């Protein structure tokens, strides 16, 4: 499923994002209209905002293997119902923007459910500079 470009939706995280145990509900909204960036803002603490990107727009070789074990948590019957976003980090400056390829956010946008899936053993790093090319793990 492709990310929706115009709608704002609420996404609930039954298993919280690591480091954010209290922020279980977020609002997903597009930033701009080109479909490259999305904001994910905590409904509990609005100052908490992740910037997300659809990985295919930046990392063509990225092929995260989402295990079926996550399906019940996300109320999905198939991984085809899920959309994948990577979290961007601008902590080291915008020119050095990185994406977390090891732990993408996997969303069932229809059901409003999400989880951060850790691809342990995949070899994908937590910080990959935007614009680098990644091969398949």
């Amino acid at each position: 499923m492709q990310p929706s470009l115009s709608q704002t939706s609420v996404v609930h995280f039954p298993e919280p994002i690591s480091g954010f145990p209290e922020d279980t509900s977020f609002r997903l909204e597009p930033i701009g209209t080109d479909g490259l960036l999305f904001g994910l803002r905590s409904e509990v603490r609005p100052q908490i905002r992740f910037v997300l990107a659809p990985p295919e727009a930046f990392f063509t070789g990225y092929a995260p293997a989402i295990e079926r074990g996550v399906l019940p948590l996300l109320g999905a019957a198939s991984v085809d119902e899920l959309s994948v976003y990577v979290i961007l980090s601008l902590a080291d400056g915008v020119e050095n923007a990185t994406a977390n390829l090891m732990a993408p956010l996997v969303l069932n946008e229809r059901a409003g459910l999400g989880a951060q899936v850790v691809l342990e053993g995949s070899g994908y790093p937590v910080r990959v500079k935007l614009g680098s090319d990644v091969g398949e793990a």
Partner: protein
Amino acid sequence: MLILTRRVGESVIIGDTVRVKVFGVHGDVVRLGIEAPQSVRIHREEVFQALKEANEKAAATSDAQVDELRGLLGRRTEPGAGR
């Protein structure tokens, strides 16, 4: 902290649903097998810490940084070259 001694092949049970079994010991390396419900997330601690730190850094992005990033991306992408 509870400290237990176990031999290879022995287990500990945590709560009603989590079982940790010692599969082998080779020098200072211990192989563990963990059985837990799907909902219990299991990570090597250093992976968990790295992830938590990365998330915390990423959550503090300012609007000004986002605008700057959009500016950079806008220069890279040609108009109309959507997905």
